[in-house]
């Protein structure tokens, strides 16, 4: 007897397309790229209990993904500096489209859908100038590239849409790289990262940066809440034993506020935050795979607690709290004061968990 997934995939192929939802992809709540034990790469759908909902092979190592707001469709991005992204049908596993970075551009590994799901935004490097770009792709036109806007800085790493709006938040990491020299950093002395908030037409709504003394704190990853708060996670490019704060909270009209825990707590992060996510209860978590640490702060940026787990990195919101993942295949439920293992897969989960 054909499985429901197989049956639906058949329907899809025959053109009798019902309105599919994420439930048809096995009820995933989150996405993560991963490496299988044999070294193959794939995008995984994960359920609320940490179990696997689906697996779709990828041609190379992934980084992050973007989930369509309603349709069971994901865009998987290659690891930086990637030249392509794949639009995946999460029910059939088919690659529906391949997005190639235009000539002179490469992707940074993150992207976001518009609220109605008709547009996809991608972070890109304009290679000859190093200026950041946000590429705009039209889903209803077969993911044709229909334009681009300035990202507001150099090295835009993550873009996300503020919940319930079409406002985009862009983490401009500030680091100029060139694909010819891989990930070599070309401007550490002059880098100036920022967070840029923009309307979907590219008009700038706000543009904030840390104190110049912290200009080597590269903003890479962000998370947002419905009230417009954006949590910013940094990667310090100076001496790791300077142990700078790595989390700041942005509130509209109030700029960035650093969360500065004590020296021991700061050093536990090894000057590197790999991911950031809110909990449904309002707290925010940052992870450091290098420090093997996940730290939880309250909504005002006061440090609450930390957990030690080797290679922990992915963290994202769930309806009741948060979820975290690590490079040894574990999925954890994250509460305000608890980190509980939910599942252990024979996989290495890549940097990010993406909430659907």
């Amino acid at each position, binding site marked *: 007897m054909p499985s429901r997934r197989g049956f639906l995939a058949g329907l899809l192929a025959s053109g009798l397309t019902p309105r599919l939802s994420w439930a048809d992809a096995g009820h995933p709540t989150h996405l993560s790229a991963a*490496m299988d034990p044999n070294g193959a790469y794939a995008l995984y759908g994960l359920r609320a209990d940490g179990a696997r909902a689906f697996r779709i092979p990828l041609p190379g190592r992934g980084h992050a993904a973007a989930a369509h707001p309603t349709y069971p469709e994901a865009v998987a991005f290659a690891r930086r500096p990637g030249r392509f992204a794949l639009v995946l049908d999460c029910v059939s596993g088919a690659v529906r489209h391949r997005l190639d970075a235009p000539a002179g551009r490469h992707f940074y590994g993150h992207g976001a859908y518009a609220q109605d799901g008709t547009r996809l935004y991608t972070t890109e490097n304009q290679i000859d100038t190093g200026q950041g770009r946000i590429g705009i792709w039209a889903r209803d036109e077969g993911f044709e590239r229909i334009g681009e806007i300035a990202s507001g800085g150099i090295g835009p790493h993550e873009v996300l849409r503020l919940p319930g709006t079409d406002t985009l938040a862009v983490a401009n990491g500030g680091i100029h790289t060139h694909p010819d020299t891989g990930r070599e950093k070309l401007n550490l002395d002059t880098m100036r990262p920022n967070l840029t908030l923009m309307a979907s037409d590219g008009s700038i709504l706000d543009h904030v940066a840390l104190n110049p003394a912290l200009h080597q704190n590269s903003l890479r990853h962000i998370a947002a809440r419905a009230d417009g708060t954006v949590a910013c996670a940094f990667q310090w490019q100076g001496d790791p034993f300077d142990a700078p704060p790595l989390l700041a909270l942005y509130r509209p009209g109030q700029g960035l506020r650093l969360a500065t825990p004590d*020296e021991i707590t700061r050093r536990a992060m090894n000057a590197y935050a790999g991911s950031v996510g809110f909990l449904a209860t309002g707290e925010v978590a940052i992870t450091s795979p290098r420090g093997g640490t996940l730290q939880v702060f309250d909504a005002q940026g006061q440090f609450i607690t930390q957990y030690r787990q080797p290679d922990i990195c992915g963290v994202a919101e769930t309806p009741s709290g948060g979820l975290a993942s690590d490079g040894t295949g574990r999925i954890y439920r994250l509460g305000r004061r608890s980190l509980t293992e939910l599942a252990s897969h024979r996989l*290495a989960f890549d940097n990010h968990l993406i909430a659907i």
Partner: protein
Amino acid sequence: MIRPCLISIALLATPVSADVTEAVEAHVLPGYATLVEATARLSETLESTCSGPEVTQAYHTAYDAWLGISHIQFGPIEARGLTLSFAFWPDPKNQTDKALRKLAAAEDPVVNDSDAYAAVSVAAQGFLALERLLYAPPVEGDYACQLTRAIAKRAALNAADLSADWNAGFVEELRSPNAQNASIRSDDEAKRALYTSLATALQFLYDQRLGRPLGSFEKPRPKRAEARRSERSQRNIELSLRALRDLSARLADAPTPRTDRAFDVAFSRLEGIDDPALAGVVDPGKRFKIEALRQDIRIIQQTVAAEIGAELGVGTGFNSLDGD
């Protein structure tokens, strides 16, 4: 002290591997016991005099003892928030100097209260703060003497607390892990925690103890050598390596010929280096030996990962090495 623990192991439903037990009983517990003894002696010595050969000898013995256990950064030391309290280094912002000057400028009476001293900046605690006061005092006089006493006393109390914690509870936790237990949930995790200590300490040797003073060939950084004022930079490397060789031998289930050989190479290299503060990083003739030692440590890291890490199923740092 040890016997009742052994009995409880025998009662366990799930077997605890011999290597975890051995690593704890023959490596961790004696390491802390030595630290307790040496820091107590240092504190006693300082009570009677504030300087002189007896003090420096007791300082070196206590610092040596710390090198025997400094790589254990989990368990009670983490739970008590003491991971930086014995050795605040590297210190690129010169925080030790600033913290000591600040205390001295205010003649802060906190030096008279060991409990309260636990709450002062970690930069003003431990062996590097003591070293400043003994070898290059940023402050002098009676207050400086009181500071050295307070630091040594606090180190002795901290060492006693950690040793007591390990013996009272944590040693059981590590040897009889169970799913209800918050910090160590399985035998595998106990082993992984010990392995992580080993791997992290090797990386610290490579990146910090050797990497910082070496800098680059064009720009060597001799002033960044660890504990250079008391000329312990090379000694710290050697003692740390000795402790790590001991841990790796106890942690491995099977013979580890490649790891043993890699450690031997590093130790014979050290015999050919006589550069207590690693000042030779600026001299091309001496520098190449220090660079070669650093390369020896890289090889140890690789053999440890292959012979011990792989067997424990410890990943290679899928995310931590990706860096994005």
